[in-house]
């Protein structure tokens, strides 16, 4: 097992190198760079900048060097843990990423827990009571949830939160807690704001998770091994969880790893609507403004999380299913 993991980790290196080159080239592809987009912005504000100043800016950002050198400079620093400097935010990329990644992680994990906490019992009920009134009601509610765009849901949730619960709209903190150090009150404020993004982000996956679980479970419910266990005298609830559910849940275990990259890219629109300090909006901003290092770093992290997530998925699946473990 250990040698397998090491082999996989080594195999990641060329993949990631290749991705880093593609990422770098793609970021550079659109005409212009951070300097031209800065110029555009300044000129729109009526500020004139001389050609010399432009040259100086370029030199300062090493944009006058050939692309290969720029790449080597970037990737060299990236490997040592320095992700460069964000022109857009005028701050080191490291700071920006870590600060946003923490919140993103919190929202993603709580949303995932919400999804599972709702979808698994609902899917189980729907499968065991197939074609019952409850099954139809749940299915209808879930399909409405699936068909509702999450940004719309975000708007509705924000309105509801403000109208009925008096929670300030958007963001993860009330205005008075936004820029103060962490305290118990601030944590409480954070938690009271967390539930809207948690539900909005989580609900999108709930419907599909529930429907897939229902279908998987229906496939398993009448399998001979379930009948055998029933004939053995296993009590109904334990029977359901230990036998068919245990198998029906396997495909979901393999998707846990795939959630890693979603940490960075996921739910950007919802985050923008809800004004959340997560990575999604920052990634979009960075790309729009050609903030080379920030965008590149985000995309590289995305690539790393994807390949690591794949490995994690494979390991989890092997852990969950002995048939895979032994091959």
């Amino acid at each position, binding site marked *: 097992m250990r040698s397998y993991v090491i082999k996989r980790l080594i195999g990641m290196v060329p993949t990631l190198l290749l991705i880093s080159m593609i990422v770098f080239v793609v970021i550079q592809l659109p005409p212009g760079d951070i300097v031209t987009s800065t110029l555009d912005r300044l000129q729109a504000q009526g500020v004139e900048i001389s050609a010399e100043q432009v040259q100086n800016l370029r030199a300062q950002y090493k944009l006058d060097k050939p692309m290969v050198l720029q790449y080597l400079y970037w990737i060299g620093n990236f490997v040592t843990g320095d992700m460069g400097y964000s022109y857009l935010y005028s701050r080191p990329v490291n700071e920006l990423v870590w600060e946003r990644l923490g919140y993103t992680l919190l929202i993603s994990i709580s949303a995932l827990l919400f999804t599972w906490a709702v979808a698994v019992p609902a899917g189980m009920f729907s499968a065991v009571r197939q074609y019952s009134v409850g099954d139809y009601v749940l299915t209808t509610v879930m399909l409405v949830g699936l068909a509702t765009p999450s940004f719309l849901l975000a708007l509705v949730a924000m309105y509801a939160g403000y109208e009925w619960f008096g929670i300030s709209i958007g963001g993860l903190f009330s205005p008075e807690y936004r820029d103060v150090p962490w305290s118990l009150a601030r944590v409480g404020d954070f938690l009271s704001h967390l539930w809207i993004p948690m539900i909005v982000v989580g609900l999108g996956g709930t419907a599909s998770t529930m429907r897939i679980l229902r279908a998987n479970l229906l496939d398993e419910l*009448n*399998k*001979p*091994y379930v*009948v*055998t*266990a*029933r*004939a*053995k*005298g*296993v*009590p109904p609830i334990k029977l359901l969880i*230990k*036998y068919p559910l*245990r*198998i029906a849940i396997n495909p979901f275990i393999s998707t846990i790893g795939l959630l890693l990259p979603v940490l960075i890219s996921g739910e950007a629109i919802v985050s923008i609507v809800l004004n959340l300090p997560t990575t999604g909006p920052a990634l979009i901003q960075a790309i729009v403004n050609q903030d080379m290092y920030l965008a590149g770093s985000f995309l590289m992290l995305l690539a790393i999380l994807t390949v690591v997530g794949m490995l994690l998925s494979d390991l989890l699946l092997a852990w*969950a*299913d*002995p*048939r895979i473990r*032994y091959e």
Partner: protein
Amino acid sequence: MTDNVLEIRDLAVEFKTDTGITHALRDVSFDVPRGKVTAVVGESGSGKSVTANCIMRIIQPPGKIVSGDMMFSPTRTDPYDIVSLDNKDPRLVDLRGDLISMVFQEPMTALSPVYTVGNQVAEAILCHRDVTEEEAWEEAADMLTRVGIDDVPRRIHQYPFEFSGGMRQRVVIAMALVCNPEVLICDEPTTALDVTIQAEILTLIRDLQQELSNSVLFITHDLGVVAQLADQVVVMYQGRVLEIGTVRQVLKEPLHPYTRGLLAAIPGIVPKGQRLETIASVVGDSDIETAYPLTRLKDGREVSLSPEALREIDNE
């Protein structure tokens, strides 16, 4: 106390489907004598497995027991009627797996792929007896040894897919016998196995039956197996019992023409060019050709649900 561990009387089972009501069992009555092997024979769809599932009360919807009773007289507890048990009756828990247990047809799928065989055999004990996990595993190991699994200390921690079909069926048998049930139901336990393994499994079942002296209800369509194993034979056709007798009686001097047809249809050594006997319409109802289940349609007509009949119904 009677000499019958199980007395089935006028058992009727219906499956309500979109097409109509299918009578899977009609007025089935027979006894399972204590400590003997009773074989239930019949072709596919004759109601053998439905009968077995009724005894375990694991009949799946839309199947439903509509009438009849099954008097169960175990030595360990007072007799009771299995049909009248409520779904939540605690006696049902003891019935399944402890007093009556079952070996199924498909050893390849009868065990969950994600638990070790030890886990699944020990679970049968843990469901019914107040023992610790270790004690249950020890008993499971003993039973696995008895059904002829080699190297049990290692094999017990293996998963079902690491066993061959015959070995898996041994595990299933161990699982069924580990609580020493009074009745063991074998639902075509050798059908999915190849011939040499079949013989081994049959010998195993017979030896264990003699050793544990429990009553066995053996469901099969293989009359060769019946001759080898059974004391008493019940012949079923279209959800009805046609003939009951000792194995000698039924195989040597069958009373019912259907049984005669069944016996004549056993492939044997026949002169070249001679055709194997097929079972023609021998049962009373003249319009019935084969053992498709009888179904009462919504307009009250009764038909045998052959593919042609189904097509006709769909066209109407």
